[in-house]
């Protein structure tokens, strides 16, 4: 131990750029946001430390808490629709795509992934067109099959708007679970499948008993990515319903609530401190969700090594 190893400069050189940009633009602002949520303005306009008072206002003061709980509840429903529709559909499509000797698999894969690469502006606008009661492709199509009575201006009705938007978002993003599950299914070794076939396990029961348990970790990762993505959603609601998340705030989620609070809208002025408070609350919600996944679910998932 007489001679210490010389400092390996190349490690520092390799790490420095990423670390620098990441810390300066991501970590420092996040800490800044957490910090800002502890301050507020005095009547005179000076900035003063208020501790957790902003949070008390957000959760307790009816002027704020009503919007907050409304946005949180809507966000929860938004997430639930994704979990119940997007991920099962994604798994199903991936299972079909990965069936052996399927022709045109590359075409289907590319076509189904295309909505994912479209911008929210396009997605929001085109679905508004399709569902519009005036121009309306949807009413015309329902009419053609004799179901015109089922049509309603879904985006304009308080009770349907949020679910409709969630389904549009599912339509857009189903490509991501499909792609990841497809990759997971492809990486199951042939020997495992062959062994199952030798034992007479084929078709559906092969999927449920052999493949599904093997791709559960991937489904777990997708669920947590969906969770993080949904609790940060903003764009789709903003482009299709505006910052006011109409009708009557029925599609308001945390992202639009944060935007309105921080930047203001119409007559209300922007409030950076309450904005930071909402961002911190979102940060807390996401952290709780991720920790719940890491400690309560991921540790129980059984992983197989091939």
């Amino acid at each position: 131990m007489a001679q210490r190893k010389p400092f390996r400069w190349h490690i520092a050189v390799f790490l420095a750029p990423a670390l620098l940009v990441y810390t300066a633009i991501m970590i420092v602002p996040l800490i800044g946001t957490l910090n800002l949520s502890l301050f507020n303005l005095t009547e005179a306009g000076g900035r003063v430390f208020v501790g957790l008072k902003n949070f008390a206002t957000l959760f307790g003061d009816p002027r704020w808490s009503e919007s907050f709980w409304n946005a949180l509840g809507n966000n929860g429903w938004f997430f639930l629709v994704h979990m119940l529709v997007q991920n099962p559909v994604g798994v199903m499509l991936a299972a079909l795509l990965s069936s052996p000797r399927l022709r045109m698999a590359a075409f289907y894969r590319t076509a189904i992934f295309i909505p994912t690469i479209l911008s929210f502006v396009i997605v929001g606008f085109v679905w508004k067109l399709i569902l519009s009661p005036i121009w309306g492709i949807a009413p015309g199509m329902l009419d053609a099959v004799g179901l015109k009575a089922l049509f309603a201006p879904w985006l304009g009705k308080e009770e349907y708007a949020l679910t409709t938007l969630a389904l549009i978002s599912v339509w857009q993003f189903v490509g991501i679970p499909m792609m990841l599950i497809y990759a997971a299914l492809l990486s199951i070794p042939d020997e495992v499948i062959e062994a199952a076939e030798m034992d007479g396990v084929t078709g559906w029961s092969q999927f449920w008993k052999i493949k599904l348990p093997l791709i559960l970790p991937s489904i777990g990762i997708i669920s947590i990515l969906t969770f993080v993505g949904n609790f940060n959603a903003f764009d789709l609601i903003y482009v299709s319903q505006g910052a006011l998340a109409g009708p009557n705030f029925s599609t308001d989620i945390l992202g639009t609530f944060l935007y309105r609070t921080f930047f203001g809208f119409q007559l209300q002025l922007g409030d950076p401190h309450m904005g930071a408070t909402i961002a911190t609350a979102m940060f807390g919600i996401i952290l709780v969700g991720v920790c719940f996944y890491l400690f309560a679910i991921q540790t129980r998932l059984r992983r197989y090594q091939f």
Partner: protein
Amino acid sequence: MSTARHSAARSIAAHGVLILYTVIALFPVFVIVVNSFKSRRAIFADPLALPTAETFDMVGYQTVLKQGDFLLYFQNSMVVTVASLFFVLLFGAMAAFALSEYRFRGNLLMGLYLALGIMIPIRLGTVAILQIMVASGLVNTLTALILVYTAQGLPLAVFILSEFMRGVSDDLKNAGRIDGLSEYTIFFRLVLPLVRPAMATVAVFTMIPIWNDLWFPLILAPSEATKTITLGSQVFIGQFVTNWNAVLAALGLAIVPVLILYLIFSRQLIRGITAGAVK
């Protein structure tokens, strides 16, 4: 015999479901493209009909191109996306190499620190990012967007790339060392070419949210000179909301570039994820 028929029926059913979903996925794109080539009257009369010689009309595209700004918006989007992609891939690969290749104190901690960003979205720091950009005079510059997107893309890039780099043969790298290559040469000449599929995967997953982002352009660079195409078309829709030809043409034009980029990378994509971290 019966199993053969059984499997034929199954494959037809599989094709049926996949075709049905493909139609659902492509239908809205079809609606935009078809109607952008029709005259105003034809759009309203029969939105699902293909343009015929009678109803064919390029007036929408003419309006958009006369507007002129779209070329600039497109250029802005291109600059921002390509530059961010370059920095994410370069810096991400370098950090991933350091984490996967060398054993040093704090390696694991560093990996966790960088992975934190996958779970916590950068948007929550917007308030403070805006203050930083205002303080450094970067508001309404493309640099601000490039910086933010680079930071946003790095965590996932480092995570995926370091999984891949662990799979690069040690013998190869050690052979390089014996031949007297520096660590930098080993990284750029030996390792980088070998992880190309992973780079393509990271490129697709990084590129799509950057190209389509509305939040940061709206907040950090809303000026006329720095608008991206996503923000530009959002504003355009607001102004031309009754000029459907123009709006549909603008949307059609906004789809093309990202579609081309995706098709370029997508061949590498599946190979990339299959060998990657998420298996």
